[in-house]
């Protein structure tokens, strides 16, 4: 019996080796043929996309609103560029550890010439992979190190999502005003609740811009922020939102990736401004609007550049202009009247530069109006502030680096559970 097993194993191994040998030689031949056949068509794209293979690494799967937003962007970008389904690979549930390196290396082995990763914690492992595969482009969304790392094939990207948050805040302000006018509560009670993940600049920038947007419409608005200490923790997010509602918050928004906060709002009948995408299906009565980053423009840009052999920006910032920062459709059932018109008006102001989200005249820190602030733009272990970011009367967010670095605690926002 043992002999039979040994024999079977040997045959199995031999067959598999033969199979891999076969498939890899096929792979190398196929692109050459198709490249010749389609070179005229590919030329129109500005680069040869026909033998391009693209890899994507996601922290979770489509059950996370954050990853779903990336997955949709990835599929859309590949479809727009005319990539066939076997030209791109999606790897879901990749933890922020050595598995990320292994997955990236595996994608490179499979012939991917450009690889994207979506989670902040993937960054260091993407850098390791970039060092080991100099001919493959590694693009990491939300990271901070590319502009100082000095690797030609490692890139970061983010978007000026604070502008989207600000617009979403405008919708929130409209709703608060409507509720005040309806006599549901007084202007002084207009308190917003916000469920954040970490006390990290990305989150701080997000809730502050949201708050400033809301306060630009409803001047008496205040805000309470609670932190869950996790990017994805449905229970904690739901509990956090419920706690804020019980604490007297009249409207909720969140920066965490599960359906926890939106469902808590739907259960309690409290309006919710969502993030990462519309949650209207699950929350038809309370969902107002959601801001999100559309990663499609970045994916298309980076893939096209790689296909054409052109350099990719070390640090790419999507904007309203590149259609990277989007608002979902306003849910008329929950939103105040005229919300869409107001959003459009403010959006025009942001685009023509007449409105700045972090206008220093719109907020104070410990009662003072800021005229100067050194932010930690170049990541280092000691968080040394290194760049002056206030000039021309506003805080220049996402200009010196794509990832947010606004980390000021402004007046009017109360932080709860910062120690999670």
């Amino acid at each position, binding site marked *: 019996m043992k002999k039979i097993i040994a024999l079977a194993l040997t045959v199995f191994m031999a067959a598999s*080796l033969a*199979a891999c040998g076969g498939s890899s030689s096929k792979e190398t031949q196929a692109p050459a043929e198709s490249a010749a056949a389609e070179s005229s068509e590919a030329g129109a794209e500005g680069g040869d996309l026909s033998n391009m293979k693209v890899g994507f690494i996601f922290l979770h799967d489509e059950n996370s609103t954050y990853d779903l937003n990336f997955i949709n962007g990835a599929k859309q970008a590949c479809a727009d560029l005319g990539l066939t389904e076997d030209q791109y690979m999606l790897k879901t549930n990749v933890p922020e550890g050595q598995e990320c390196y292994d997955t990236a290396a595996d994608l490179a082995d499979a012939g991917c010439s450009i690889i994207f990763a979506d989670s902040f914690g993937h960054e260091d492992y993407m850098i390791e992979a970039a060092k080991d595969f100099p001919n493959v482009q590694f693009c990491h969304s939300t990271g901070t190190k590319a502009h100082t790392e000095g690797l030609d094939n490692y890139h970061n990207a983010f978007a000026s999502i604070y502008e989207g948050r600000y617009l979403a805040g405008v919708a929130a302000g409209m709703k608060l005003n409507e509720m005040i006018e309806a006599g549901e509560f007084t202007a002084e009670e207009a308190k917003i609740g916000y469920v954040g993940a970490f006390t*990290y600049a990305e989150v701080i920038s997000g809730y502050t811009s949201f708050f400033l947007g809301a306060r630009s419409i409803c001047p008496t608005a205040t805000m309470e922020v609670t932190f869950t200490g996790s990017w994805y923790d449905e229970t904690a997010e739901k509990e956090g939102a419920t706690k804020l509602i019980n604490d007297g918050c009249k409207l909720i928004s969140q920066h965490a990736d599960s359906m926890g906060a939106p469902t808590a709002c739907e259960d309690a009948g409290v309006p919710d401004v969502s993030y990462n995408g519309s949650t209207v299906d699950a929350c038809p009565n309370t969902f107002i609007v959601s801001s999100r980053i559309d990663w499609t423009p970045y994916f298309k840009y980076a893939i096209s550049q790689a296909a054409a052999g052109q350099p990719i920006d070390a640090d790419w910032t999507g904007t309203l202009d590149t259609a990277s920062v989007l608002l979902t459709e306003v849910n008329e059932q929950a939103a105040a009247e005229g919300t869409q018109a107001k959003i459009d008006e403010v959006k025009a102001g942001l685009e023509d530069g007449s409105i700045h989200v972090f206008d220093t005249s719109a907020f104070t820190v410990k009662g003072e109006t800021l005229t100067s602030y050194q932010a930690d733009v170049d990541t280092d272990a000691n968080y040394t502030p290194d760049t002056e970011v206030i000039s021309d009367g506003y805080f220049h967010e996402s200009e010196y680096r794509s990832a947010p670095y606004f980390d000021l605690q402004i007046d009017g926002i109360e932080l709860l559970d910062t120690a999670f």
Partner: protein
Amino acid sequence: MSKVKTPRFHISKRGIIPRRQTWLIRGAAIVLALILCAIITTMMTGLNPVKVYTTIFEGNFSTSRRIWVLMQNIAILLAISLAMAPAYKMRFWNIGGEGQVLVGCLATAACMIVIGDKVPNAVLIIIMLIAAVAAGAVWAFIPAFFKAKFNTNETLFTLMMNYVGLQLVAYYVIVWEVPKGSGKIGIINQATQAGWLPQIGSYKYLLNILVVAVITVLMYIYMNYTKQGYEIAVVGESENTARYVGINVGKVIMRTLILSGAICGLTGFLLVAGTNHTVTTTLAGGRGFTAVMVAWMGKFNPVAMIFASFLIAFLEQGASEISTMYSLNQSFSDILTGIIIFFIIGSEFFINYKLNFNKTGEKEAQ
């Protein structure tokens, strides 16, 4: 679906049966599991099951990197299982492997962060190793001590120690996070590589695999050819017998658990210094629990446990490949893995008990 019907049988305890027959039963279980998985795959996804199985195989063996990753996963799972084996053989239900590995990880990372730039690399690695082994040993010793002295319930105690370990890691992740507020440490000493285990040639994981191979051999000898190994077996069979022949049961429990925890700590050391170079709450990734299954499947025999670890690591890696290749949710591949493992564990029943099932069983599956 139609084959859930119960065949006519009566159960009786088997005597010792020839090894060939046990393997036949296990083989039949795997075949049955594969057939059931094939039916479910076709029903739920419309995919060709043979192609799906080929994909599982390719996910593990199609490139040398995949083989290395597989070996590394086997090694880590096996190491934790080896740590569990003596405790379980002694009938000490140590389900605290997860926590014991995590505190080992934490101790290793702590040394890398705190004294990473203060001592020469070789000294640093030795300190890290000692710290990790000691941390793991302490984590297992605490419940063992209470078990030996006060006869506390070790299942609950070791389980609770997991949560304490997990929260300790969560706490220190916030203390050492980079950048501030992000909730992650990232790769430690990425520039200097201080405290990173050396790489043998171009093989990232070879050192880990070799270390675990050595542990496997030592554990085999320890369990089968040493007086202490024999004492473990006697305590496991009957504590009263052990006492009668003059074995200090409490001492054996504590000694064995220190060993068990130390190997877990060592595994944590390999995970942090050898591969991940960071510490997160998910670093052990549930393997502290999976290891219990491996140890049982391998009947606490280190050699058999190699195969059990292989099977689980193989299925996991194949599962993730299925979800990538066919754009299926990972949950689907987890269902397949679950069915296969269920059948394999279930087959142990048929090894221990007699049942006239051969012909009916095969007919049903077809």
